[in-house]
């Protein structure tokens, strides 16, 4: 079990997921599936046996079924036909001789095939070889009798089959069950290992820093924040953990090795690595500072000092970003997601979120600060403007594609609707990185509505107009958008109707399409939003699957499904639905703002009237629609 990860202890240098582990192609996607089959196969309730047999038949179709499983299934399937084992079957469908033949064949196959695989050339007789792996003698005799003499009697082969099952259990099913690694242990070990590797990296980098600067006491400001965390105790414990290579741990070699270790883990278990890293970051956050800050929110410097808690990890993040820029992006996404999950949970209680002092854990409240901090790192890594815009764009293209930033900005805005200064500021930085002045300007306006952020207003070149006008225009815009998308859908429906009449082949043309976006993931898995670890697909055939299921995410959309089959119209709707498979939120920045101002009527919150149906729309959709409008205008 332990050897699965090869994780032997904190100081171990061994690679956990090394190639020496022998992998074998199996027909099951997880040990859970195997365990399900084992349990149902030997279950006393007759209803569950067929499901196991069915799954084994499916495994057989994949072509790599271990022969012991095949033989077990064969014997059990024959027993299912045998009235001797069934109370509910009065009379056998097959004659006794047929049953005997079936049993006999299964037993012969068991003996021959299993022995074939294990028999060494020195062992001469089959009986000897069978003895070596403990196959009951009775099975050997039946093989002999059945091949060369009379067909053994049904009573005999029935008995033998029962013995054969017993042997198969002791030879394969039980030992295999015991050899399956315990998943809980695995995960715990994995997380432990990740934490260890990250700490190691942090330690290496710190040691490097120390050796370079001669002392830990560098700039007064930094030490102040580092001390409580990296004070003697903690430091010593780190030293102790890493005692084997503490002398040289600052060397370049060690740093790069530590980075490699982390990235290796990240490649296989990106979700876990992000989670652990997030955990570590949140841990280093100081709640006392936050309380101070919340009591005194206008003091700009306090935010810095809160974030200074994270600075312990700054070099780590920078280092990782150099090697694997996607990690930072995924980390940012993970932060947003965490906030989102937390908020949606809170929202039901109808409490204002991040500023609630009493029940909130300070760690959760640290998330926006963390986000801002990370965005600042990202920002600081973009080269100075000296070399002109082109260089910057090159950098961005290399390390963070534009679409990625845009996506991040979208998510950030969705989360940010609760008037959070840190997130708003981050959103602004992100939009600046995109280098789109128009977007910048609009964002500044938008943000200035919900929050009063003076520094934002200052930093934009364009002066802000009166807030109220903005609301009106925003509101108008969204209404226009709704009207236009309605037209678009109508148009699409008409068009596709006429197309259907005239041209039957129009639909065929787009049956095969290349996936628009694709996160790398192992073959057999579906891509995961964060990183490359992938997630297991659901393979049950759930009354599959009209093309419509893509659309019917919510009941609200039922009416829209009429346009099914009309590909043209469907595509328009899909565009609207584009991101709604992700966790949707009911609120739209624009609409929410308008609610506060009480301009629009009740019931509109988060909904748009499209094609006579109130549909829930998300921030992303509105942005998508808005961009559509921009094209139209």
């Amino acid at each position, binding site marked *: 079990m332990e050897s699965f990860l090869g994780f032997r202890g904190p100081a171990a240098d061994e690679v956990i997921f090394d190639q020496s582990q022998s992998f074998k192609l199996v027909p099951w996607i997880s040990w859970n599936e195997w365990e399900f089959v084992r349990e149902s196969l030997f279950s006393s309730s007759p209803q569950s046996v067929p499901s196991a047999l*069915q799954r084994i038949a499916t495994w057989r179709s994949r072509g790599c079924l271990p022969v012991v499983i095949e033989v077990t299934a064969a014997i059990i399937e024959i027993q299912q036909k045998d009235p001797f084992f069934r109370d509910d079957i009065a009379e056998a469908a097959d004659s006794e001789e047929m049953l005997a033949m079936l049993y006999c064949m299964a037993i012969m196959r068991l003996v021959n095939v299993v022995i074939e695989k294990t028999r060494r050339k020195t062992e001469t007789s089959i009986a000897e070889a069978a003895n070596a792996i403990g196959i009951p003698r009775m099975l050997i005799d039946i093989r002999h009798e059945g091949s060369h003499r009379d067909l053994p009697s049904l009573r005999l082969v029935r008995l033998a089959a029962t013995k054969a099952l017993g042997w198969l259990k002791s030879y394969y099913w039980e030992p295999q069950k015991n050899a399956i690694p315990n998943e809980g242990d695995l995960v715990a070990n994995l997380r432990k290992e990740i934490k260890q590797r990250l700490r190691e990296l942090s330690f290496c980098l710190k040691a490097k820093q120390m050796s370079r600067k001669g002392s830990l006491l560098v700039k007064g400001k930094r030490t102040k924040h580092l001390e409580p965390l990296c004070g003697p105790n903690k430091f010593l414990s780190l030293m102790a953990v890493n005692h084997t290579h503490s002398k040289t741990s600052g060397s370049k070699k060690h740093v790069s090795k530590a980075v490699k270790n982390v990235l290796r883990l990240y490649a296989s278990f990106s979700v876990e690595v992000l989670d652990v890293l997030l955990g570590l970051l949140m841990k280093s956050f100081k709640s006392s500072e936050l309380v101070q800050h919340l009591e005194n929110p206008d003091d700009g410097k306090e935010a810095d000092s809160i974030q200074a808690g994270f600075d312990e990890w700054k070099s780590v993040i920078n280092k990782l970003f150099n090697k694997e820029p996607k990690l930072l992006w995924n980390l940012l996404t993970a932060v947003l997601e965490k906030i989102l999950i937390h908020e949606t949970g809170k929202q039901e209680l109808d409490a204002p979120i991040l500023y609630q002092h009493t029940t909130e854990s300070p760690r959760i409240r640290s998330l926006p600060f963390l986000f801002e901090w990370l965005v600042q790192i990202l920002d600081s890594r973009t080269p100075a403007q000296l070399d002109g815009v082109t260089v910057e764009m090159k950098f961005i293209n290399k390390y963070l594609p534009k679409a990625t930033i845009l996506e991040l900005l979208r998510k950030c805005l969705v989360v940010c609707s609760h008037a959070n200064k840190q997130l708003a500021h981050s959103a602004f930085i992100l939009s600046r990185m995109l280098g789109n002045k128009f977007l910048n300007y609009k964002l500044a306006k938008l943000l200035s509505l919900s929050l009063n952020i003076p520094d934002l207003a200052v930093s934009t070149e364009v002066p802000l107009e009166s807030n109220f006008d903005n609301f009106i225009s925003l509101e108008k815009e969204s209404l226009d958008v709704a009207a236009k998308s309605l037209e678009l859908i109508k148009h699409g429906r008409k068009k596709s109707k006429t197309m259907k009449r005239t041209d039957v082949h129009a639909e065929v043309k787009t049956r095969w399409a290349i996936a628009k976006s694709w996160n790398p993931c192992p073959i057999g898995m579906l891509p995961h939003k964060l990183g*490359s670890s992938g997630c297991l697909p659901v393979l049950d055939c759930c009354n599959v699957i009209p093309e419509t299921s893509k659309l019917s995410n919510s009941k609200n959309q039922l009416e829209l499904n009429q346009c099914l089959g009309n590909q043209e119209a469907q595509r328009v709707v899909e565009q609207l639905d584009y991101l709604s498979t992700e966790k949707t939120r009911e609120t739209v920045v624009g609409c929410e703002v308008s609610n506060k101002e009480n301009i629009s009527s009740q019931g509109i919150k988060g909904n748009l009237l499209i094609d006579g149906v109130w549909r829930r729309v998300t921030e992303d959709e509105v942005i998508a629609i808005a961009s559509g409008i921009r094209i139209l205008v």
Partner: protein
Amino acid sequence: MASGLEDFENPSPNIVISQEWSDAAETIAYDSVSSPPPVTFVCGPKNSGKTTFSRHLVNVLLQRYKRVAYLDTDVGQSEFTPPGLLSLTVIDKITPDLTIPCLKTPERCFFFGDISSKRDPTTYLTYTYALYDHYRKEHCIFDNKEYPNCAALPLVINTPGWVKGIGYDILVDILKYICPSHVVKIRISAETKNLPAGAFWLDEEECCTATLVEINSARQDSFNRSVLIQKDSRLLRDLHMMAYFRQCFPSDMCITTIKELAHALAAHPPFEISITSVKIKHVHCQVPEAEIFYSLNATIVGLAVTSEDSESFPHCVGLGLVRSIDTLKGILYIITPVPHNSLEKVDLLLQGYIQIPSCLLQVQGCISPYMSTNVLPTD
């Protein structure tokens, strides 16, 4: 679409074509000037050099004819296609290196879905006959109305090395159906492993219309014993399959190792196809209907087109890898080097026992869930 991981410029250094062999090839190619082009059937036991001789023969024929048809019935070690396919390919270029197989897009091809004909001899024969019929129809008529400038093409038929038992029966059936003009029988020194002497496929009273060419295996030691080059056929198949999926990527992309290929495949944006718009069928066994996706996920399928003509069989445009399935969205994700325009016609996914090379599934960082550790070594 020729592709290979090595350089074609080097003429094959390890392959020696004996005088006997080149004489045999010359005889076939320049047999009679007036008669229709030769239809050559190459047979012999395993590792005797059938494929090498066939390649050599094709090259010799290409000196006289512009194009040569090649009917590949060796589903386990096919020449121009990945394993599991029966195919008819038209070749118009000499391949100087005989050591490595190179991939070509066949003119017509069927998905047999196994590496040996033993699981379903009837279907195997049917497909072989259908391919030969196709050759007769398209490339054998002297004045072809559709292609007036097209002369009839010579045909080379390569066969599997299964020459005993059912394998022998299958060979005889194919020979009887095709009636080739030349039969090349490669013999090895272990007499019991050879095909019977003479025109073994004929019934007693029939007279032989074919020219029988009997040659010895290419390599012999000083005692005239055949030196058989044992191939790791499983490894060869895996390499063939990897070379096939390598074609998903532009040839100038730097993919030289298996590891790089595996990573590239994991990151490659696949084709999406709605589950409802294709039929899924296993060609060799019954899959419980509710469990189709358990069976299909992460397997290699033949991408086939149902023909409108109910008489003929679905022909195959290539192989695909079902890299994952999203049952909630109702989408199959398939990686294939088949170009988009040929894909549009595909409406049938044929599953068989063609296994995905496991080295593509277990590269660090993207280990497929079907690669498991802690499996008891039971077989």
